[in-house]
């Protein structure tokens, strides 16, 4: 209508106005009415317009079947198992401490000894350089000889440790009954004491003394008490610088605590298995699509601690997880702390343990060490590390192993069936409906499904039909999916189907109920035969067990008042219709279907309130049919819709149209088949009175 008018305005107004414009008054315009006849729209309605969301099947004869699929239930990985958060907390005491091996010597010369021997001693000294006989002397003490090694340690309290006392007799005479005594200088506490019965001239004697439980200080005193039989009257060369050399060597010291310069050493070095927390399943491998590892470390050591942590069986692109960090020195009486979270997405977890002989098992290596710094620090075996390793929100993308033998109850689950949403009927009778229940298994487990309930609900009519029949009495087995290439798949689904028809069930009644909801209840048994694959079950997160319903409904039916109701969004651009005085819209329906169609069209405003009707209960007559109920031609029906200004205004206010159509098959009481070529051709035209000015 408007397009035609536009066309007129462009062409005729231009030229006719040329003829007249020069004569007119400048202000205002003359006005007149024209009655125009214009086509509005045309369309063709076929069955696929009337029944939406469907797949139409057309056989060789053109007969239409309606194929519809609806998803009923999904059984997925998270229904089967979860990887729970796992936390490994360890308090590591220091395995041991070790200190540098220490060695120090001090000599006691003949001169020093002679000075301790009254009368004879000075005489011997006076013969220095001469050859004389040295007489015997008893129990000569050297007095306290200071040994100062406090540049190496200040104090050491040993759990274990040893000291070798090596005495080399550089004198020309034998030494007998030599007693060596070592004590801390500060309090005189004895560290070690030992007696050498005889040390021949020029000979060396060594004694090993355990220092276990001893506390050694950096400043010590040593006392030697010795006797000698002298040279036996034989003259010997007197050299007062000849000496008894004492060498002290402390080694294998494992202190309980020490304030010392420490050598580099491992304080902790552990390799430990731990179990991932999972339920009911025994996994040998998992690949993560998300998750985190959180590492918390604490140390009481007053030294920097180098910390190495690895998960040798957790790989990302083939590289095991490895963390190295340095904990700073703790303040005395306090702890130092380290915290970090790592994304575990994409990791592959080998859960067979270090020997690949178990399940659900991870492995971790933890090592703590100090470096040699040359700085004196106090470390005790009572110092410790505290490590908390947490695996959080692990979501597997893939898992392998034995996925368990379990029973899952699928509680009554209701899904909407939208194919008949807008359909109602007083009488509706279908024939030859075929319905398939399909289980499509994408998990590498066997299963068995016991169908407990399948009910169609027509909530508009409050009518229920339970699917029943011999075909439903036997549970059907679900075969496992195949993963021919392993991760990342794809898997080959294993379909299992239960086919229902009029011979083995009441499926036609089930669908003729025009259900808008279907309720399903079942029990799923997994791995009813147990671990038949030797830990080779598998599951992908994206794949599961899908339960679908599809049916094929030949459009061969008998219906009385089969009603379709649809709400259509209308986007009508507001136009100035003040120049349209009135209009009659004519609907020409050329019906090629063996159905009487009674139409009602209502206009709704944006609040979904009906503001007027375009049509109310106007009938489009059915196409004529032959004795086989096949359509032989089309039947034209004209319906006029009158518009005045008020109704036109309502039309432009319309936000929605409610279209109600009810169909009754003709001839009455007989089944008719709908063919693909059956259409209703629709044309809308209008005669409208337009006010020109």
């Amino acid at each position: 209508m408007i397009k035609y008018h536009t066309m007129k305005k462009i062409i005729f107004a231009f030229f006719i106005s040329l003829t007249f414009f020069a004569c007119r008054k400048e202000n205002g315009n003359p006005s007149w009415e024209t009655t125009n006849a214009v086509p509005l729209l045309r369309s063709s309605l076929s069955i696929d317009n009337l029944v939406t969301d469907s797949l139409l099947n057309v056989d060789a004869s053109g007969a239409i079947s309606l194929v519809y699929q609806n998803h009923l239930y999904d059984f997925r990985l998270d229904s089967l198992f979860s990887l729970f958060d796992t936390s490994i907390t360890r308090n590591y005491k220091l395995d041991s401490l070790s200190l540098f091996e220490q060695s120090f010597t001090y000599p006691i010369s003949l001169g020093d000894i002679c000075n301790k021997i009254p009368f004879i001693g000075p005489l011997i000294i006076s013969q220095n350089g001469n050859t004389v006989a040295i007489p015997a002397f008893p129990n000569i003490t050297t007095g306290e000889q200071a040994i100062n090694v406090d540049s190496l340690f200040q104090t050491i309290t040993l759990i274990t440790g040893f000291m070798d006392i090596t005495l080399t007799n550089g004198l020309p005479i034998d030494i007998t009954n030599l007693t060596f005594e070592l004590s801390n200088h500060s309090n005189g506490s004895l560290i070690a004491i030992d007696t050498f019965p005889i040390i021949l001239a020029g000979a060396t004697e060594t004694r090993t003394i355990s220092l276990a439980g001893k506390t050694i200080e950096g400043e010590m005193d040593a006392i030697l008490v010795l006797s000698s039989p002298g040279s036996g009257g034989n003259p010997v060369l007197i050299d007062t610088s000849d000496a008894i050399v004492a060498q002290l060597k402390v080694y294998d010291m494992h202190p309980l605590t020490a304030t010392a310069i420490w050598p580099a050493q491992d304080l902790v070095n552990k390799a430990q298995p731990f179990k991932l927390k999972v339920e009911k399943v025994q996994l040998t491998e998992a690949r993560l699509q998300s998750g985190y590892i959180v590492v918390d470390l604490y140390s009481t050591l007053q030294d920097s601690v180098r910390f190495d942590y690895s998960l040798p069986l957790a790989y990302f692109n083939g590289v095991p997880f490895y963390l190295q960090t340095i904990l700073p020195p703790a303040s005395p009486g306090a702890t130092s702390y380290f915290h970090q979270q790592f994304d575990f997405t994409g990791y592959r977890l080998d859960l067979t343990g270090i020997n690949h002989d178990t399940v659900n098992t991870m492995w971790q290596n933890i090592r703590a060490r100090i470096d040699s710094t040359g700085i004196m620090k106090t470390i005790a075996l009572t110092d410790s590390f505290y490590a908390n390793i947490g695996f959080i929100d692990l979501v597997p993308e893939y898992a392998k192993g034995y996925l368990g033998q379990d029973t899952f109850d699928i509680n009554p689950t209701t899904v909407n069936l939208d194919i008949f949403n807008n359909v109602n009927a007083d009488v509706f009778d279908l024939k030859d409906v075929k319905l398939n229940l399909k289980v499509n298994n994408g998990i590498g487990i066997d299963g068995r499904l016991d169908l407990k309930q399948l009910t169609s609900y027509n909530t508009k009519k409050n009518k229920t039909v339970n699917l029943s029949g011999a075909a439903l009495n036997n549970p059907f087995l679900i075969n496992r999916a195949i993963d021919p290439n392993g991760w990342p798949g794809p898997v080959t689904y294993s379909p299992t189907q239960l086919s229902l028809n009029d011979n083995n069930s009441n499926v036609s009644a089930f669908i003729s109920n025009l259900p808008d909801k279907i309720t399903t209840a079942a029990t799923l048994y997994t791995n009813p035969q147990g671990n038949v694959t030797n830990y080779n079950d598998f599951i992908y997160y994206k794949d599961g067990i899908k339960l679908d319903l599809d049916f094929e409904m030949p459009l061969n039916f008998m219906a009385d008042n089969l009603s379709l109701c649809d709400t259509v969004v209308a986007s009508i651009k507001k136009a100035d219709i003040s120049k349209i005085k009135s209009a009659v819209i004519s609907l020409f329906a050329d019906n090629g279907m063996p159905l009487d169609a009674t139409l009602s069209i209502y206009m709704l405003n944006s609040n979904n309130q009906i503001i007027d009707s375009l049509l109310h209960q106007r009938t489009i007559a059915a196409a004529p049919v032959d004795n086989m109920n096949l359509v032989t031609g089309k039947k034209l029906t004209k319906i006029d819709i009158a518009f005045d200004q008020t109704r036109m205004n309502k039309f432009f206010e319309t936000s929605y149209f409610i279209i109600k159509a009810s169909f009754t098959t003709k001839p009455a009481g007989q089944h008719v088949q709908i063919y693909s070529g059956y259409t209703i051709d629709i044309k809308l035209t209008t005669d409208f009175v337009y006010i020109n000015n």
Partner: protein
Amino acid sequence: MSFFNNPICTSKIFAAFIFCSLTITVYAQPLTKVLQNDSVYSTLYGFADYYGAGNAVTNKFMSAYIKNNFLDDELKQSVYDNLKDKNKLAYHLETGIGFIHKKNKWGWMVQFQNQAHSASQFGSDLFRLYFGGNAQFKGETANLDNFDFNSIQFQSLGAGLLYHNTSKKIDWQLAIMPSIVKGQTAYKANSDGGLYTSSLSDSLYFDMNVAANFSDTATRKFSAWNGTGMMTDIYFRFGEDKNWLVTISLTNLGNVSWNAKSGSLLIDTNYAYTGIEIANILDSITLQINGTEEYKNSLLNYTTDNFTTTLPSVIDMMVQKSFANDNLHLGIGFRNVNDKVATPQFYFTSDYKLSSHLIIGANLYSGGYKPFSATLTARLSFGKFFIAPSVSFLEEIFRGNKGTATGAGVVAGWRF
């Protein structure tokens, strides 16, 4: 002495010649009305003429249209009854002032003139379609052929010479006045086509071929100078005093070239419209009510370029005979307006001198833009001043709603 100045009139003669007139007609040539036979004179004159004529559109219809009234069915029907295959409607307006000075045989003149002229031809169906809509054509094709339209408005400034030979029994005058023309507006268009409306109104088929030119539409006021041209007016008359007179005039001989901003429009299209096709009427419905733009591009081929139009030249030839001691003049004439629409016009003219101050007359016309029309004329003289009004309304009285013939004019002058 001019026959304009012959005295004497009577009431009987007035009654007898009420439908007759001297040559003062609507769409007349003003110079012929101010030329004198005196040897010496000077005249300052002005004139204004309006004339509308058509062979189908009625006066009432035109009146309602011009007054911006509502055109009801009765009005439209009155036109429908007159419609033929080809219908004409024309309009002419001219105003101007001039000065003429003559001394002995020679004289000179200057004149400024403003003219607007339009003439159109249209078919019956086009008019019916435009004013009645296409519903009346269901199952038929509305024939839109033979539309032609020309309209021009221009101003001219001319200067000319006059020669008056009085040496023989037959005296003659010749005046030639070339003018420069300022073109104000021009429109010309012609088209053929048809619109078919199916009987169910479910399809329209539109076929249209149009060629049109128009001057620069940006400036259309009186001051607009959109084109430039030249024209010449030629006046020639000869006769025997108080006996007979032949007058020949050729006016508006020339053309105008319109500037390069002028528009040219070519439309050659046919268009079938069967409504908006909707694949699925049950899906959301979107109606776009405003669809003007999509047609502009598909229908129109618009360019700008200069073009030339021929001025609506007029040839007028008249023979008059004096009676009643030169108080009564009867004549016949031929006129043709060169505007593609007008047909040759033949007319009968008469005037009678009622007194030395008043001459009245009447003219009857056949041809031009309609089969029949008539005017009443008069000439009043008061010393050096004269005025010659004319009106055209008689057709409405005698023939009713048979066409349009409205007009009025006046020529006034001051003779020195």
